[in-house]
């Protein structure tokens, strides 16, 4: 990417502040996707430790029983729930579901695709992720 192209780059792509909740959802979707991919790789490494026998397996499990391990798992729960719920919203949108119908636009223009159904979907995904995270915290730290 050369300077001449004047691309916004990753900083512009990741900036969620300028275009409303839809852009925030886009950003959270990407971030949670990358986070879950990282967790998936770590999870494969974690479960492969069973090859080291019971002692090796127990040693690794102890790592997840720490404060840092619990916080990490709580974030994974939130990412998982948000990515699932918002993913369903996005997939429906990609099929043309809930994006409105073409119509002659009247000023002031309001884009039909950015409608309340999708906004409810985004807020629901955030809310459910928060609830799941709190439940996870209660289970892990409530022992």
């Amino acid at each position, binding site marked *: 990417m050369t300077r001449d192209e004047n691309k*916004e780059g*990753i900083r512009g792509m990741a900036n969620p502040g*300028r275009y409303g909740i*839809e852009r925030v959802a886009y950003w959270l*979707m990407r971030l949670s996707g990358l986070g879950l991919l990282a967790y998936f790789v770590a999870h494969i490494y974690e479960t492969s430790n069973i090859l080291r026998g019971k002692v090796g397996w127990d040693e690794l499990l102890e790592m997840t029983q720490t404060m840092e391990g619990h916080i990490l798992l709580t974030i994974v729960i939130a990412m998982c729930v948000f990515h699932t719920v918002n993913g369903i919203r996005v997939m429906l949108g990609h099929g043309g579901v809930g*994006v409105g119908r*073409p119509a002659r636009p009247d000023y002031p223009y309001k*884009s039909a695709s950015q409608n309340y159904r999708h906004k409810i979907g985004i807020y629901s995904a955030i809310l459910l992720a928060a609830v799941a995270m709190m439940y996870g915290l209660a289970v892990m730290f409530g022992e």
Partner: protein
Amino acid sequence: MAQLVGIANEQASTPLSPSKSITLRISRFNPGHDESRKFMDFAVPYENWTTVLEAILEVKKHLDHSVAVRYSCRQATCGSCGMMINGRPRLACFTKISELDSDVVTVEPMNNFPIIRDLAVKFERLFETHQKIKPYIIREDTELESDEREFLQSPKEVEQYIQFANCIKCGLCNSACPTMATDSSFVGPQALAQAYRYVADSRDKGKDSRLKIIDDSHGIWRCHFAGSCSQVCPKGVDPAMGIQLLRGYLLGFKD
């Protein structure tokens, strides 16, 4: 001589009332000479109806004539004066200073477009992708030879695409798109919305060839429905809707 009179008349025109003023921060950059962008501040008087373009032209007329800006119609029809205004892509002629609710108005060239100089950007790539999707009615017969003399459409059929025919090719949607921010090869929301405009037109028979063009790794599948394109469109085109409906054809939800 007539030209000189014209210039004299323009200079004698009523100046903007100095009752209120803002600081106009203009991005200055010449790729041929400058290493990086710099901003120049100008105090510009304005009224409730003053647009950002008028403020820039006021700077050009009275303070610094070297500011490079592209404009033409001054009424949101030609799509020439797209730029980043306080961090968001907008048409300068369609944005009033009073609606920005800020004492400092920062204008920069549109993101994701190569800079010619200052606020003027190159549109070659946008026109290239626009042409790529075949922005015209495709069919073998012609209404000039047909017995009916014209291809009739019902109001319902017109409604399927008329919204997307409002596109003025200003490039604001491409500037706001998060995929365009990183992917130089992405066809972009402007071209994709225009692809839908022709696919949805009942007179058009080129659906298959257009879908083939956009069914590409840097085509329609790179759109992640962030919706920023629709939020910045000054003509109510709603490219995000067009793209999702277009994807419906590729996924088999629509015929």
